[in-house]
């Protein structure tokens, strides 16, 4: 029936509305424009104003008038909406209505370095600013119907493909030609960090996508300044920059990335969110960023098997609980947003989900605004759409009840003055108990069910199912009698229903269906009780969970505060000239170490209210610093080009990585997060402190000197990438050298060009060609200008030599060789150059180039006077770096004090942060670890780990955290079992993606 009504209205609309005036007419032109009068409804003009028993007059596409005391023209077609509610139609600011969907590219082992797009467009296939939705948009009656059924009258349509996606079209959801439905071409410009259907290699990482977007905007500005119109993508992108920008994000952490780009280019992004924005709320609530929120809440998982359930993370469970409250949490922080049905697989669930946000605390007023006036304002059509006012477009909805009533049904959706029936208004309620008289027999006949779906049966000895169909005014009844013979009847009337029909033997008979009593609705309010739920717990189950930082296992209920602590009777490994102090003491206050040694401590011990820890038998050290790590990142390698100096690891931070917490448990307090080793010039490093529960921005080590990752050897020449990867330069160590010479030579030239430009006057600049801004070369130039240091992944002596020669010839010092497994072969050369070493304790034999790696490497280098560190490059080993340090004692006879510096002071020196961390010295950051035993002993445990004087890990806190995890898990499992779908929606439990990165990943 639904399908029929769609067809029916399509036909009507063709008749009703003449095509555009300039279109030729095939036949006779219809010139009459009727007036519709909607009366007796509660009209919701907008979220704040309603008119009881109001009148709405519509002519053509527009609202003639709205109000209570309005004259209804005589010729108006009257729609009596007694008891119904009228609302402005919804506007979806995010859809791909009427456009083709492009599939995301799948992984292809064959490298593709260039774009496959033909024409004079961007070098990169993920950049499609030239795309304009209005050029290819077609009306699609099936999709339009789906949108109208959930209350939408107009949608913004864009193509979700690429990082720069081009311009959208704002369209109406009628059935006319595109020319009739287009409201506004180029309504907004679209961006994302996902390359979509592009099969080109670059970018292959999240931070690469960000870099490409930034570079492209600079390119567009540059081309425009130089009046270079040869690249159509750049021309169009420059036009796009004037449109309202909308960026699609896949994760709340990316809001920070969008904000940074917004700031850089003064672009006021509207963020299409992913539904977890509440998790970053404190970071953006004051930014005035507007959001488009999806309403695809996670379904309850199937938690019936206790073992399978172990794979379900607390993070997912907590998000399941809080996702429907996303909008409400944002609203209470004053954030403005519109809703979209974009991510809903089953669009039919949209209204249900809107109501769910209201159940979770969003006011009905804001909910309605988010569907109407807010998107209207976002898309700059608030003068025509979004509320019911004289002169505005006749886009409105008729509901049988208040829209937020769970039982309410959308009856009609009027788009530009044309009505679309969604659920036909039932003129007669057929339900009740009847007597069917047919062929001399009398049968009890029941009609029950809902108005939309009648349940009809004959209740003799057996219950016979009856088919009961209405077609216009004719009623078609058919059933199989007790002898399985098919009886078919056709009648008319309301009560009685009379008519004729045929028995199974072909005889024609007449029948009468007479109502005996009216239908009594059974109270269906009491839901089936779920046996698994303890009634006493219902209250508990209805409570919303707390939001933790991060919102997962081991997240904080309250973030740790800075403490004043005094450690006494303890062995203190100062890493300073005092060496290891026995029976000593140390005090921290306000995030800093304020006194080391009994004398200094005695001087201040009464100054503050210290918590005193008796450290008898225990050891105190500075926190472990991991020079080489890939934890807490969402991607690691932008390996598609020989140089990716433009990418920033800080963009890809993932502060909810459980490995941060795990490594705190191993005494790690600072970690350098490096780009991978897929290319000779990698990306810009991020140095973090292990501030578990902090935001990405808060994790970054303040004022640390910037670093970049370089790499040499098998990885950069793609030796182990399979037989297809023989295309990208370089494929040999010979080529690697040239990559560096080329990059540094070009960086110098780049600097010259820009210096010349900066010397020009404003008017000269206008007349001159602007040099090309290049994010890659700018970063490389920083190295030459001593504003950025290098840490270089390296194994073989030849390439270590080579890079030092390159550096010498370019007048800079190579700061750190990381891995550097053959460093011991060129120790004297490294010393002469001034390079430091951050190596593995004992790794070898995993690649051909590490055949000569030896566990004595660190000791030999240290003996030669080179600043030597041990790093992890591995999330597991990182939490045992204290023991890795001991291997220098074992294999190379390094002294214990020196070996300990391999994982504390020396990496601090390599990272240029030794003024703040790396030793126990008054004035340095209180990044300290309390060990149960000798810190390098296998039998030792980190009992407490402080960062900035905050206790982020202790054995006691850990026990509390575990208990809290378990209680919360249990609560949520019970709640899922009691969920609407009983937690048995068959939604398979998925294990969280593992982000266990090494260099080569």
């Amino acid at each position, binding site marked *: 029936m639904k399908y029929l009504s769609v067809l029916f209205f399509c036909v009507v609309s063709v008749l009703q509305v003449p095509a555009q005036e300039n279109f030729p007419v095939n036949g006779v032109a219809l010139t009459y424009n009727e007036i519709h009068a909607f009366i007796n409804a509660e009209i919701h003009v907008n979220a704040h104003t309603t008119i009881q028993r109001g009148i709405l007059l519509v002519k053509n596409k527009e609202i003639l008038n709205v109000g209570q005391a309005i004259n209804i023209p005589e010729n108006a077609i009257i729609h009596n909406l007694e008891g119904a509610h009228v609302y402005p139609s919804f506007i979806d600011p995010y859809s791909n209505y009427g456009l083709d969907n492009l599939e995301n590219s799948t992984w292809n082992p064959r490298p593709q370095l260039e774009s496959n797009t033909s024409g004079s467009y961007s070098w990169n296939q993920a950049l499609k600013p030239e795309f304009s939705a209005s050029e290819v948009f077609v009306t699609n009656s099936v999709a339009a119907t789906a949108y109208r059924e959930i209350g939408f009258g107009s949608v913004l349509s864009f193509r979700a493909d690429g990082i720069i996606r081009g311009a959208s079209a704002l369209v109406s959801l009628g059935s006319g030609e595109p020319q009739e439905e287009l409201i506004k071409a180029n309504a907004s410009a679209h961006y994302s960090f996902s390359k979509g259907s592009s099969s080109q290699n670059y970018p292959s990482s999240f931070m690469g996508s960000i870099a490409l977007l930034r570079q492209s905007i600079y390119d567009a500005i540059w081309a425009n300044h130089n009046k270079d119109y040869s690249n159509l993508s750049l021309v169009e992108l420059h036009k796009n920059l004037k449109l309202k920008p909308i960026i699609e994000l896949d994760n709340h952490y990316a809001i920070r990335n969008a904000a940074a780009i917004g700031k850089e280019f003064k672009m006021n992004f509207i963020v299409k969110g992913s539904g977890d924005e509440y998790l970053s709320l404190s970071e953006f609530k004051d930014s005035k960023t507007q959001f488009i929120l999806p309403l695809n809440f996670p379904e309850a998982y199937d938690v019936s098997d206790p073992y399978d359930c172990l794979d379900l993370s*607390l993070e997912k469970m907590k998000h399941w609980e809080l996702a429907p409250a996303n909008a409400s949490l944002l609203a209470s922080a004053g954030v403005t947003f519109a809703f979209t049905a974009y991510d809903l697989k089953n669009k039919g669930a949209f209204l249900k989900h809107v109501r769910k946000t209201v159940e979770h605390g969003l006011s009905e007023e804001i909910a309605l605004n988010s569907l109407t006036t807010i998107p209207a304002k976002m898309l700059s059509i608030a003068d025509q759409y979004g509320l019911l006012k004289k002169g505005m477009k006749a886009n409105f909805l008729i509901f049988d009840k208040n829209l937020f009533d769970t039982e309410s049904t959308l009856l009609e959706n009027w788009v530009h003055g044309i009505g679309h029936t969604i659920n036909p208004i039932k003129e007669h309620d057929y339900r009740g108990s009847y007597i069917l008289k047919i062929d001399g027999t009398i049968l009890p006949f029941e009609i029950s069910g809902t108005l939309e779906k009648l349940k009809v049966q004959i209740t003799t000895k057996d219950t016979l199912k009856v088919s009961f169909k209405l077609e216009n005014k004719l009623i078609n009844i058919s059933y199989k009698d007790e002898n399985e013979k098919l009886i078919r009847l056709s009648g008319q009337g309301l009560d009685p229903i009379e008519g004729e029909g045929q028995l199974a033997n072909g005889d024609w008979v007449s029948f009468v269906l007479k109502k005996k009593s009216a239908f009594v609705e059974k109270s269906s309010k009491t839901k089936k009780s779920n046996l698994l739920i303890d009634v006493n717990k219902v209250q508990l189950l209805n409570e919303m969970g707390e939001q933790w930082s991060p919102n997962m296992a081991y997240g904080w209920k309250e973030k740790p505060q800075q403490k004043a602590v005094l450690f006494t009777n303890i062995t203190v490994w100062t890493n300073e000239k005092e060496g290891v102090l026995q029976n000593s003491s140390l005090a921290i206050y306000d995030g800093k170490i304020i006194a080391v040694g009994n004398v200094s401590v005695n001087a201040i011990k009464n100054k503050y209210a210290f918590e005193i820890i008796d450290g008898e038998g225990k050891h105190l050290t500075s926190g472990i610093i991991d020079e080489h790590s890939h934890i807490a990142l969402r991607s690691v390698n932008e390996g598609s080009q020989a140089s990716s100096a433009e990418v920033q690891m800080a963009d890809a931070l993932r502060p909810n990585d459980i490995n941060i917490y*795990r490594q705190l448990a191993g005494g790690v307090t600072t970690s350098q997060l490096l780009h991978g080793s897929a290319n000779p010039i990698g990306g810009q490093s991020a140095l973090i402190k292990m501030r578990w529960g902090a935001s990405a921005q808060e994790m970054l080590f303040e004022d640390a000197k910037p670093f970049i990752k370089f790499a040499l050897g098998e990885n950069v020449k793609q030796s182990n990438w399979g037989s297809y990867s023989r295309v990208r330069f370089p494929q040999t160590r010979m080529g690697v050298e040239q990559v560096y010479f080329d990059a540094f030579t070009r960086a110098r030239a780049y600097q010259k060009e820009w210096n010349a430009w900066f010397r020009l006057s404003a008017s000269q600049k206008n007349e001159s060609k602007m040099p090309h801004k290049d994010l890659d070369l700018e970063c490389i130039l920083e190295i030459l200008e001593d504003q950025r240091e290098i840490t270089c992944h390296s194994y073989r002596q030849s390439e270590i030599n080579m890079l030092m020669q390159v550096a010498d010839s370019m007048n800079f010092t190579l700061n750190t060789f990381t891995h550097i497994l053959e460093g011991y072969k060129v120790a004297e050369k490294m010393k002469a150059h001034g390079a430091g070493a951050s190596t593995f304790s004992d*790794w*070898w034999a995993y690649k051909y180039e590490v055949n000569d790696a030896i566990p004595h490497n660190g000791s030999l280098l240290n003996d030669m006077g080179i600043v030597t560190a041990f790093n992890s490059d591995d999330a597991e080993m990182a939490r*045992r770096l204290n023991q890795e340090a001991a291997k220098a004692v074992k294999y190379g006879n390094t002294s214990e004090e020196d070996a300990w510096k391999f994982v504390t002071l020396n990496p601090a020196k390599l990272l240029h942060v030794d003024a703040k961390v790396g030793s126990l010295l008054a004035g340095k950051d209180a990044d300290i670890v309390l060990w149960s035993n000798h810190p390098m002993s296998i039998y030792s445990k980190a009992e407490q780990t402080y960062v900035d004087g905050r206790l982020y890990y202790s054995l006691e806190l850990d026990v509390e955290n575990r208990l809290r995890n378990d209680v919360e898990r249990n609560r949520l499992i019970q709640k899922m079992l009691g969920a609407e779908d009983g937690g048995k929606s068959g939604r398979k439990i998925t294990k969280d993606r593992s982000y266990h990165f090494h260099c080569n990943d």
Partner: protein
Amino acid sequence: MHIDMKKINLLSFCFCFFMIALAQTPAQDQGKRIMLYGAKAHIGNGEIIENSLIVLENGKITSVEDASNVRIDISNAAYFDVIGKHVYPGFILPNTTLGLADIDAVRATRDFDEVGELNPHIRSIIAYNTDSPVLPTIRTNGILVGQITPKGGMISGTSSIVEFDAWNYEDALYKEDDGVHLNWPRKPRLYGDDKHMHDSKDHFSEDLKTLEKFFDNAKSYYLTQKPQLDITYQAMEGVFDGSKQLFIHVSSAKGIKQAVLFAEKKGINKIVLVGAEESWRIADFIAEHEISVVLNRVHRLPSHKNDAVDIAFKTPKILQDAGVLYCLDYEGDMERMGSRNLPFTAGTAVAYGLTKEEALMSITLNTAQILGIDNRLGSLEVGKDATLFVSDGDALDMMTNKISHAFIRGKHLDLSNHQTDLYEKYKKKYDAELESENSAE
């Protein structure tokens, strides 16, 4: 106690000379009686002798005693003064691919994973490379015997136990074809969010059916008069007649239960769980079924974010308390070159609850018992093979694990390796340079 010191010095000098001349050459069979005097002996069964005398003859341990009470006759013996040092039974590494690959990234050196799903007839010993440069670096940390195990497929093949000092694989064999290795089918773990869900196809039930059928057929073959040799099923015979153990590699708690019930149903008596990361959840179940466990690497991340941070570290203690017979392996990333860290994983288990001697058992006697070689290996007891080593200090702790002597069946091993050779080479170079620098000053 009277000892002729001259004789001793001369002897040990001869020995050193011999070692340098033939670096990493397999050691010669034991000639003279060997006497280790004065070390703290960690017997491997939980006992300790603070000041021990250990005598090795013809490749066997012939005496383990408290040295303070005995009269020592060093005539015609190689005498080792190991006062203040520690003697341990050789560590045993179960479930390893040592010798089956040398360099991870070089395919030509990888020999542990054969094509096919059901390969009991694939024998690891065939590919075992006694000359793998990795091997000498492992024994330098006290690991002297290993169970060389193939990987891949549902039944990867048959393992063998070898000594890490041999001219060829026949020479290396300690116990041939000791067990068949079954990888318990895993439910597909789905990763990521729903939008980007990977491989959701469930092979689990199909795999189970395949296994059911395979084991039924194998048993049926075992019970009939063989009309014609079937190589695959023939290789399974030992599993039914008890001459081979069935090692079931399985990690999850649910998988462990299923695997145990499967083996019971198929009438297989000798099974060993391998990996068994989640055994801590069901330690009592495992103990009740009297099944032993080769526990996966203690230095391992928890498998779930929710798990206790140190769950892998304390699993040995949980198994110990439940009364499960277990030992430690080092399977996983970099398992061959990394397996020299096996003793330190036992050390970690001490930090998380075991006693040192219990931890030692988990890499010596327990392992020998589980592999069925405890009549010859696993402890310093009279009658067992003279496979043991001397460490300067506690061998379970990195700082003190420094092996000075190691013996396999009384053969005195060369403890140098490719890495120590390179170290010596460059140390000499730099010592000379530093010396000339100093003299220049």
